[in-house]
């Protein structure tokens, strides 16, 4: 029993530390990014670049909020709910399309805009459309790879759990 209690307390402390770590990161990085990329007194930092920095900060805030929500969601898994309710929560938790994904996609879009604005003045020899496309050549494949990895991860790890929860729910409700 003592070994188990120590393990449980360690797990709780680990989650708490992780949660606090993210909170601290959140409170440090956001103002730092804002200071260096948006309100820096550096005269070489153009207005376009400052807007780009602002986009990066906004995207960062959205990602941090999504991450915090996921940790809270993971912490709130409650095994003492009636089985039907617990299974419904599990099926919801392991869904591929969640409401926060549209926020994540918005953050990706804002990051893209930010990257274009930050590197816009550095590609002076190119037309505006080519400057935008130059970033997309790198950014779009990166995003596609990230989405594919995410789908693969979901398919291997979460889909079987969701399918199992739905199967049990169907049987319970039949």
């Amino acid at each position: 029993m003592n070994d188990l209690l120590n393990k449980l307390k360690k797990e709780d402390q680990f989650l708490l530390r992780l949660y606090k770590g993210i909170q601290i990161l959140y409170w440090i990085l956001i103002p730092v990014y804002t200071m260096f990329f948006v309100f820096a007194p550096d005269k070489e930092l153009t207005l376009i670049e400052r807007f780009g920095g602002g986009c990066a900060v906004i995207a960062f805030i959205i990602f941090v909020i999504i991450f915090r929500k996921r940790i809270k969601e993971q912490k709130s898994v409650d095994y003492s709910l009636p089985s039907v309710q617990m299974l419904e929560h599990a099926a919801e938790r392991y869904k591929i399309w969640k409401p926060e994904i549209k926020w994540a996609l918005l953050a990706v879009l804002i990051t893209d805009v930010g990257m274009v604005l930050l590197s816009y003045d550095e590609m002076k020899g190119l037309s505006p459309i080519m400057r935008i496309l130059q970033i997309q050549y790198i950014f779009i494949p990166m995003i596609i790879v990230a989405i594919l990895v995410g789908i693969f991860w979901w398919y291997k790890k979460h889909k079987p759990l969701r399918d199992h929860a739905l199967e049990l729910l169907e049987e319970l409700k039949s």
Partner: protein
Amino acid sequence: MINKEEKFEQIVSENKERISRVCRYYANCEEDSKDMCQEVLINIWKSLDSYRGDAAISTWIYRIAINTSLSMIGKSSKQLRFKVDLDTQHLGNLIDDDETGKKELLEKQFESLQTEINQLSIIDKALITLMLENLSSKEIANIIGLTEPNVRVKIHRIKESLRDSLAKKAME
């Protein structure tokens, strides 16, 4: 003011028998039973902060034990086996009370019954677990999250299915 650790120890010591009994149903051997108990204790710890005392502590423990067994099946490909001790007091709950003859028959054909139970789905196994714990349909409904009539229908179906299977085996 009682802290989380003390509350956990108190709940576990008061419900030790109940937890290990449920875990024994789902385990083939002592080791599997211990694994399952460990998992149930972990989930009791995780859910302790959300316990407000709205439900009876026994209902709360049963919910965690049953939900753990449902989750364990989802996480591993292995099918949990259902093992009932020969001296289980409530074995008679699997058939109607007035059918004394069948009760005796079931006790004699214990191995067959256990084999048949192991063929059942995990949901039916969960219902059998709660029946063997001598819980009322209302309590089972409260644990599983179904309506009382629905639970009664399901239990009736399980009993029918077990009875048919055993009768077929007896005729062979």
